């Protein structure tokens, strides 16, 4: 049994045939992950006690002949912005370097109830702000495919762990592409479900109206299983959806004949080089599978980046106010007055990107600017959502690039935040519209760098999205 290439099915089989107990498997997975992690730095810290306790519960269920759940014994890496009771949750920030939450996120509760094992917490951009994981207060993550390159971000650690094989699946969070882009960079599957599909309770807020929890996996099926386990209405999250959760795996039947797919003109006009070639090759595969492909137009796309960076920074400036040094935040020791405590704590604690976004967000919400920025951005957001609604009147799914380029070198774009923001262009429209979207591996560049293909469907259309991605994956056209 090779830990680094396990799938959920393989784990189930191993446990079912008593080839290994969940405890043995967990110990082995921890050993492997702890040994391999220094290569990439995907994990910030491990949670062996919690993992072994969860494994023991799975073994107990198995011993009693009970259903151990769809994720029984599956090692899961969890992005360190998702709170875990008793396990340090730092959000990759100095401010929370020693913060141990007293409660679990709903996604964690559900994932463990399904038998999943939290192996450890993964590195990311500080408070999920960034596209390369270089904004972590605890150092960058290296892309396991090419160690001198970034894994993407902000969920770079989760993507890298799955790509590296130090977890079977992982939980990440996506606000403007933070799951899909690292999935694309690391060559794994990454899913941003419909807004409201997975409870945000326990997801440290970056931009509340855009934040999603979603899965990473090496196969579409594993991503579908993990999403199925954590999705569904949560009374603790008012914005979580009532819609029933279908059995996503039942849709993985390869039958995509006649599916109508749209290629947005606005997404393709500037796409160049190998990223473009690989995407078109992928589209050809889909055509061969029987899909009908047509060009569509999403005219509001041009305003997406401006809109996104107004809304997300506005919400972030408010969400990050609580890290003030009063309670759980690491407090700056050199303060004589309250305002000094605030200034020093936040000034010393936040990294440059967080400060930049807090300032931008504070500005756009300020008296006299609100209408011109925030309110206008909300109106444009509605236009972008309308683009999607209209597109889905014509097509069943949209196929698009994930990123204008594959994984770049560490440090390459650090000094150019604008370039970094612009690279989010293809992922943020889906986030703003709240539709489900995912990245599925679509091939590699000549250098061997993975490139993902993005699939987007209508609200709660995850079934179609998974069906298409699965058929594409199973076609064998990639690799």
């Amino acid at each position, binding site marked *: 049994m090779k830990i680094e290439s396990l799938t959920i099915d393989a784990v189930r089989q191993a446990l079912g045939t008593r080839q290994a107990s969940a405890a043995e498997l967990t110990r082995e997975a921890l050993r492997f992950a702890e040994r391999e992690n220094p290569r990439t730095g995907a994990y910030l810290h491990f949670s062996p006690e919690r993992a072994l306790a969860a494994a023991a519960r799975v073994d107990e269920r198995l011993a009693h002949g009970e259903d151990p759940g769809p994720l029984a014994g599956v090692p899961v890496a969890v992005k360190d912005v*998702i*709170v875990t009771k008793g396990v340090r*949750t730092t*959000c990759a920030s100095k401010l*929370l370097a020693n*913060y141990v*939450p*007293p*409660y679990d*996120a709903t996604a964690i509760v559900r994932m463990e109830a399904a038998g999943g094992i939290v192996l450890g917490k993964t590195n990311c951009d500080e408070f999920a702000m960034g596209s390369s994981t270089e904004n972590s207060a605890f150092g960058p993550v290296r892309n396991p495919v090419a160690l001198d390159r970034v894994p993407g971000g902000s969920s770079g650690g989760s993507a890298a762990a799955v790509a590296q094989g130090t977890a079977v699946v992982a939980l990440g969070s996506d606000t403007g592409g933070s799951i899909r882009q690292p999935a694309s960079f690391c060559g794994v599957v990454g899913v941003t479900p419909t807004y409201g599909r997975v409870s*945000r*309770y*326990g*997801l*440290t*807020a970056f*931009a*509340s*109206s855009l934040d999603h929890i979603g899965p990473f996996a090496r196969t579409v099926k594993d991503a579908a299983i993990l999403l199925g386990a954590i999705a569904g209405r949560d*009374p*603790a*999250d*008012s*914005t979580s959806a009532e819609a029933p959760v279908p059995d996503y795996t039942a849709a993985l039947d390869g039958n995509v004949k006649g599916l109508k797919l749209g290629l947005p003109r606005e997404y393709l006009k500037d796409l160049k080089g190998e990223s473009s070639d690989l995407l078109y090759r992928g589209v050809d595969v889909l055509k061969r599978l029987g899909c009908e492909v047509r060009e569509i137009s999403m005219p509001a796309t041009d305003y997406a980046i401006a809109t996104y960076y107004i809304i997300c920074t*506005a*919400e972030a*400036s*408010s969400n*990050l*106010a*609580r890290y*003030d040094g*009063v*309670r*759980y935040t690491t407090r700056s020791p050199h303060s004589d007055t*309250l305002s000094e405590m*605030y200034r020093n704590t936040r000034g010393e604690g936040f990294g440059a990107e967080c400060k930049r976004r807090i300032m931008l967000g*504070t500005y756009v*919400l*300020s*008296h006299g600017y*609100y209408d011109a920025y*925030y309110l206008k951005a909300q109106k444009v957001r509605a236009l972008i959502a309308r683009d999607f609604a209209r597109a889905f009147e014509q097509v069943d799914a949209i196929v698009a690039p994930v990123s204008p380029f594959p994984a770049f070198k560490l440090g390459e774009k650090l000094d150019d935040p604008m370039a970094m923001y612009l690279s989010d262009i293809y992922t943020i429209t889906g986030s703003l519209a709240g539709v489900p979207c995912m990245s599925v591996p679509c091939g590699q560049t000549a250098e061997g760098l993975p490139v993902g293909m993005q699939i987007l469907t209508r609200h709660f259309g995850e079934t179609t999205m998974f069906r298409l991605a699965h058929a594409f994956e199973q076609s064998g056209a990639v690799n």
Partner: protein
Amino acid sequence: MKVPMSSSAIDLASADAIARYEPVIGLEIHVQLATATKIFCGCPTGFGAPPNTNVCPVCLGLPGALPVLNREAVELALKAALALNCQIHQHSRFARKNYFYPDLPKGYQISQYDEPFSENGRVEIVVDGVRKSIGITRIHMEDDAGKSMHEGFKDSARYSYVDLNRCGTPLCEIVTEPDLRSSDEAYALLTEIKQVLQFVGVSTCDMEKGHLRCDANVSVRPRGTLPFGTKAEVKNLNSFRFLKQALDYEIARQVAVIESGGTVEQETRLYDPDSGETAGMRSKEHAHDYRYFPEPDLVPLRIADEWLSAIRATMPELPGRKRARFISEFGLREYDADVLTSTRAASEYFETAARVSGEPRAAANWVMGDLMGLLKTEARDIADAPVSAGNLGDLVKRIAAGEISGKMAKEIFAKMFASGEPAAAIIEREGLKQISDTDELQRTVADVIAKNPKQVEQYKGGKTAVLNYLVGQVMRATRGQANVAAVTELLKKMLGADRIC
């Protein structure tokens, strides 16, 4: 020798000067909704728990925690709006009010801003017999902050402490129009609102526990002119007395400023109950840009018609209407109707007693006199009076029926108050029934006549006042159990008959 004036002393305007100006006042009233749990989490709202024990991830603002709106809080808020004759919006929204303060763990308050659930209400007040309608601008819901404690700890010189128990307590903010023209009107409005909200069960309005807090916007203008003067916001008016004192002080201060050629500054002023004065807060402390924006963690609030109708159906009769009805239906005097509608418990107690007795005015006298007197001595509330309203009504009914005398009733009532027993049980046990058996009474009267020949002689001689003495003798002989009217009749009859003989 010149004595330097204390820097805090201000020359207030004279009564003459004040009379030349008209105050313009609006109130902002914060009311704690009487829910069992907080507005966005399940923590209890109780008072007096050890610091930081009634808390959870949500009200502590821990990373990842999310608010969920408490349905009961919305119901109470809707009741407040209905009671204050407000228009209720089917669609409203919460907004974040952002500011930094140690007792505000999220770094923002969840309030309602440009889309409150309720607007355009009216409340009637009566001052010096004049009825006046005061506009309610809006009512919105919000969560309360915690409590900062700057004193009382050994390191208080260097540190403040924070208690977050109160954090997340549901509040309603009631904003009135600037329709008030005196501190008396403001006092009357706050009284009326407090009474109405208590009646409807929206809030206990206990000012000592901070369940009712009041700020006021105050300006003055020369009488007869229309434009409003520059207003000051006066905070910390947390008792009725303070409200009046602070407003009178502030009005006099503003008049003095204008009279001396100065201009009133738009500022926030804090009332200090110890000095009775208001003082400007350093402008930095309130120069906030709250950066309001819609709360993305909550979905917009939609109030279904059916829900609102159901709530409307549970609304009790409001004090104003009840007062009018007590006057028209029961023939109460205005003053009595006021007293008996001062609280919902008093009004309900009285109404039951009135109906059971069939003698509303007598019942009113008993409730306001004997009952409220004893309750006051024992510092008890009418809601837990030991004599039930039904039992008091029954007592009044027995008096009216001539079964017991008024004097006996007082004694019986005292016993009822002490034991909680109904009158019947006490009358039965102590043999206190009024003697209406004529034979027995006749014997007693004859006996009294026989024993008091001198007085009988005087009576027959035309000194009729002596009859009272004889009645008293009969009452004494019957230990007060005889009906005074019956005794008087009988005495007259028998003394007259004697004369005929």
